């Protein structure tokens, strides 16, 4: 073992402080969400209870949390599934040069770095214009009682995918950069069809990382606000409700909601990590 210098210890302290900076405040509100009934928004704790969680789930209190919760969960699941399928498929495509591959790559990167509010505004406008077009020029059976196609699983889903797919694609690049093609060649030499090679050789090898893509897909969607803001339609997702509450709520129920939302994120992370570990065995 190499001798560790002063530099190592200074950097280790810096890193530890950074981790405290990252986690400290979050842990603070998880603790505060268990305040007693007379507790406020700050320390010290005023008793310990589950009263703020009860209030939250009893509904009627702040907003219809239950409905927003189910909407976000459903949307997150669909985004996760589509992110995995579309990213893996595109990742396989990018292993060979094809017409337009450079363009598609740059568009994916652009989608990541164009400010979210602009993408969201654009999708919102797109659906508004489509709705106007349907109302004015659509066939009667459609135009008569058309209101809008903007919604959770149309514009909202698209908005989330513009955020999750670039991450999925970048992870796929990372996977195939380290992928050893001799396994595939061996399969091919043994007479496997391209489909068999993919199904029985490539996919099992990349599966742990693909779970990682799914994790990104779900958690990024579960917490998404900026892109949803103009493109989600009538109903709100859970993070949007939460953002709305920041200006009005002065009781720890907002912390209880925060703790619940985080619990789902942590459950997703833990599930993914467990599956990855099991697969690596």
């Amino acid at each position, binding site marked *: 073992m*190499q001798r560790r210098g002063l530099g190592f210890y200074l950097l280790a302290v*810096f*890193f530890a402080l*950074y*981790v405290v900076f*990252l*986690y400290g*405040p979050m842990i*603070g*509100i998880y603790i505060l969400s268990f305040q007693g009934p007379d507790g406020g*928004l*700050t*320390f010290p704790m005023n008793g310990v209870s589950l009263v703020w969680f009860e209030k939250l789930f009893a509904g009627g209190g702040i907003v219809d949390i239950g409905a927003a919760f189910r909407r976000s969960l459903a949307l997150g699941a669909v985004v996760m599934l589509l992110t995995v399928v*579309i990213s893996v*498929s*595109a990742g*396989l*495509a*990018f292993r*060979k*040069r*094809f017409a*337009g591959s450079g363009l*598609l790559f740059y*568009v994916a*990167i*652009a*989608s*990541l*770095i*164009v*400010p979210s*509010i*602009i*993408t969201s*505004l*654009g999708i*919102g406008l*797109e659906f508004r*214009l489509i709705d106007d077009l349907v109302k004015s020029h659509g066939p009667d059976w459609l135009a008569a009682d058309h209101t809008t196609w903007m919604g959770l699983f149309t514009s909202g889903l*698209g908005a989330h995918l513009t955020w999750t*797919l670039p991450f999925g*694609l*970048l992870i796929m690049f990372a996977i195939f950069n380290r992928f050893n093609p001799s396994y595939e060649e061996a399969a091919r030499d043994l007479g496997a069809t391209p489909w068999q090679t993919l199904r029985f050789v490539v996919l099992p090898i990349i599966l742990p990382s693909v779970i990682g893509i799914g994790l990104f897909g779900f*958690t*990024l969607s579960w*917490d998404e*606000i*900026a892109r949803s803001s*103009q493109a989600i339609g009538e109903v709100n997702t859970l*993070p949007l409700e*939460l*953002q709305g509450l*920041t200006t009005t709520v002065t009781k720890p129920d907002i912390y209880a909601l*925060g703790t619940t*939302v*985080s619990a789902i*994120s*942590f459950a997703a992370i833990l599930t993914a*990590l467990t599956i990855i570990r099991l697969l690596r065995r």
Partner: protein
Amino acid sequence: MTRLKLNTVQQRLSAGAISRLQALPMAFVFAFFFILPLVLVVIVSFWDYNEYEMIPAFSGRGYTDTFEGCAAQLPELCTILKTYAKTVKLCAVTWALTLLIGFTVAYFLAFHVKSRMWQITLSLLCTIPFLTSNVIRMIAWIPMLGRNGLVNQGLQATGITHAPVEWLLFSEFSVVLALVHLFSFFMIVPIFNSMMRIERALIEAAYDSGATGWQTLRHVIIPLSKPGIVIGSIFVITIVMGDFITVGVMGGQQIASAGKIIEVRLNALQFPAAAANAVILLTVTLMIIAGLQRLVDIRKEL
């Protein structure tokens, strides 16, 4: 022989077709939910509007309204220019801090943590918060920085101040703090990635030639980490330039920013004005990226 060649050619052709087919779903999503919306933003920014709807007729009103009175007010900055100046300032401070933190953390992980297992564990530790809700990570500062928060309690208990410090929360300070808290991850990952690609022999060579740790950092590691630094900078700068949520929540909805102007126009249903502001923001952001891109060829680095 010829037959064999023909077969390979056929295989290649169909392979290209298969690739295109595999990339099609992603291409479709980006075409319909990203490219077309951007084109519409540009088009609508040149439309007219009244109190409650947009009117599809050419007009520069979205832009002229935005810059109304700017020329007359000079040298005093008008609202929009002031807002952009403030956004750029927030952006610069956040960028400097995330770069400092991101580089140091990445450097520690890449060069001082030797065991692969620890490297993975510690990187994971940095990644997990990124996968949890941004709003919650913002609210989390309230019990710390509020009037009766931990920081004020501490300051008063130790006698450093006698009254609560008011500028800790809902101020530019808290906005920058939250931005650094939320987005330093975007700096750490690319820099770490660049550092992991540095040939370890180069560092050994520097040491063997008598370079001090500091000289090695300055002349070997920093230049070779430049691609990561530039990519991380692009992420952080574009996120902060377009941010309206962090500035809103952590600024107590009192601080203006380039992203916030768009939100305000949208809430007033002035879509062409919002679109014009989006085009301005996009132009400014792209100019910054173009400037940064001169420093590095992104295509080579990913």
